[in-house]
């Protein structure tokens, strides 16, 4: 599922060369029909699409699909011990959340989410995201979870850390980056008290 850096660049180049094609064509999931360890094939395809909509491939780097975020979430939920009530609820919440998205699509677009048009999908996800700060409905709460695990899965993946954020740390450095405080003007003392009392 994970694309190499070269694949991503190639896809990005193709996207740039074909500006009239909708992006979805470029980023079509290669594994759309494969079942996950926790989700079935249809749920995986839906989750994969939702994560990619949250962090899409762009000219800078691959998106959630290339970073394998759906597989990360699926693997995580598969490892949950369902004898622990909180974890079982979490598992159920994810399946229910995906069902809410599909139900919203059938209501507004008359088709499953994946069968809806790109504009319809965007409209549905935008509605669910509207309550991000103070989610009130199950759908809005699902979006918060979905985004949380998508960002965590993406920015802890190779593509997220190295390609997207171009993180240069986690290596031995000769010197800290930034400005040596000794080169800065000393802070003048007027506001500072004198040590008179006590």
């Amino acid at each position, binding site marked *: 599922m994970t694309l190499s850096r070269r694949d991503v660049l190639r896809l990005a180049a193709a996207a740039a060369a074909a500006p009239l094609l909708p992006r979805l064509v470029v980023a079509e999931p290669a594994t759309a029909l494969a079942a996950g360890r926790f989700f079935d094939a249809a749920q995986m395809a839906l989750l994969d699409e939702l994560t990619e909509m949250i962090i899409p491939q762009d000219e800078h780097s691959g998106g959630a699909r290339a970073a394998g975020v759906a597989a990360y979430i699926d693997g995580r939920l598969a490892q949950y011990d369902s004898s622990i009530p909180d974890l079982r609820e979490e598992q159920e919440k994810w399946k229910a959340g995906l069902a809410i998205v599909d139900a919203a699509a059938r209501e507004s677009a008359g088709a499953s989410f994946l069968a809806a048009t790109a504009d319809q999908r965007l409209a549905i996800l935008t509605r669910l995201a509207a309550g991000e700060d103070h989610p009130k409905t199950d759908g809005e709460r699902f979006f918060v979870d979905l985004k949380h695990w998508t960002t965590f899965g993406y920015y802890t993946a190779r593509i997220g850390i190295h390609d997207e954020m171009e993180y240069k*740390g*986690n290596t031995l450095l000769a010197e800290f980056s930034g400005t040596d405080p000794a080169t800065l003007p000393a802070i003048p003392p007027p506001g500072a008290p004198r040590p008179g009392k006590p």
Partner: protein
Amino acid sequence: MLLRAPAPPPKDVDLSRTYDAVIVGSGAAGGMAAHVLTSHGLDVLMLEAGKKLDIESELKSMEWPYDHPRRGEKPYTAHALSFNEYTIRQPPYAQGTPWKTMYSYVQGWGGSDYSKNILVNEQDHPYTGTRYAWVRARVLGGKTNIWGRLALRLSDYDFKAKTHDGYGDDWPISYADVAPYYDKVDLYLGIAGHPEGLPYLPDSLFQRSTRLNAAEVRLRQSLARSGRVLTPYRAGVTTDGLKHNKYRSRCFGRGACGRHVGGCDIHAAFDSPTGLIYPALDTGHLTLRTGSIAREVTIDPGTGKARGIAFLDAGTGQALEARGRVVILAASTLESARLMLLSRSAHHPNGVGNSSGHVGHNFCEHVMGPSVYGFYKDLAGKPRTIDDGRPGGFYIARYRNLRERHPSFIRGYGFEGSSGTEMFPSTARLPGFGASYKKAVREMSSAAVHMGGFGEVLARYENAVGLDPEVKDKWGIPVLRFSFQFGDNEKKMAADMADTAREMFEEAGIEILSVDRKVLTEGWSIHELGTARMGADPKTSVVSPFQQSHDVKNLFVVDGSTHVSASCQNPTWTIMALAWRSCDYLADQMRQGNL
């Protein structure tokens, strides 16, 4: 050069002999006591409840998240308590839990798989009473294995705070008494920082400072206009190396410092094992016994003096006693108080060293929660620097109640903060989704600044811990019952933190994304202090200015429990300076035949 000297070989424990001193606890205080006493040639036995871990293989400071099966997270069968749970539930928090293990909130941070064996399982270590987020590490070195590294000095604004504002009690010592010992700690352990010449936040003998990035320089300059001081994080980290310590490397700014929970597998950041205990073992005078659960200070029935420590072997459950001419408690503020209260005898019916009735009382700490997060918009999209390749970002020194009096609260607070890029972008919290969200996360990450306050919680007699009459821990030892709550002063101070944080960001031209006014649960700062305070008067204090029990002359308590007030500075460096001072005194008294 990366230093990776192995730990010294263990020495056989001989429980049939009487050691010069028995130390309970191996954190900052116990480690320092071991260092100082062994350097005086005394034979010391150190008891640690937890294990000695192969800490480098626990911490794996440079493991990439994607190389870890759960991206650095603890096993999914483990649960970390949340702010919400602390708020709506009563301790013992693990009671009836379906989780395989339950941890304090610290284990809810990313990277928690690396600290899962360092922090205690709440199921084995219950406590009762008022809500409290108690974070404990039962392992060689205690919490110094994962501490936040901010290493600050107290000043006479703290030691003589009552003289300043009339509240509470002054310490029986002043800055002049402690300053030479702060110097010793600085030189022996290494500290990075930049001198500012502030009377209310004295400078240490600093090694090479960390640096400030563009946003931090601008915030510093903005604050300077009102006489407030933003200084690079004063980190208990050796940035230049320590020629006298073969177990610790200098800091290479690698970037694992931004990963919670902390810990440094090259030991550039101070930890008690490599900084204090291994060198003490190398003297040949220190014997270490891990897996030793102290449950009582034993008393010589004839003299009423301390005879040693009764403890349980954590593996076998066997009850044992270690004997010492002197007993030193360094088990942490709350565990040392618990141990004193557990040690009831005919001579000391109230618990050892507790004729004053003050053991467990005057419990204080730091209040935190109010924080602010924002952006220097014009820094967006600028090349990102390696901002988590530092032991910390910045510290804003206290500015309240120094010369002017604030109308609604006494004492002060400081801010810890940082700016810029970490491995996991703080900007992932930005709202929205899609291409514009992704771009904003990327571009704004070089522009982000955040900081949160740490304020003094007043020492009050009624804030206390005592023994629970019924609940016992895994080893059958009565647990602590908390009676601790923030008061009006803390709440007003926290409100002021949030207000001034906003003002400072606004004045600095930082566009604010969020201001959090929430006060976090009692205990959140992990800076418990003051349950066996020092004083000149045996009627109102537990130990002397040299941390010697007023009641039992061969009993010393050298951890944060002896602090008279919390100040707003992080306490670790003060704990170690005081322990050094007291152990010098102890060795001297022993030489003179007074102990």
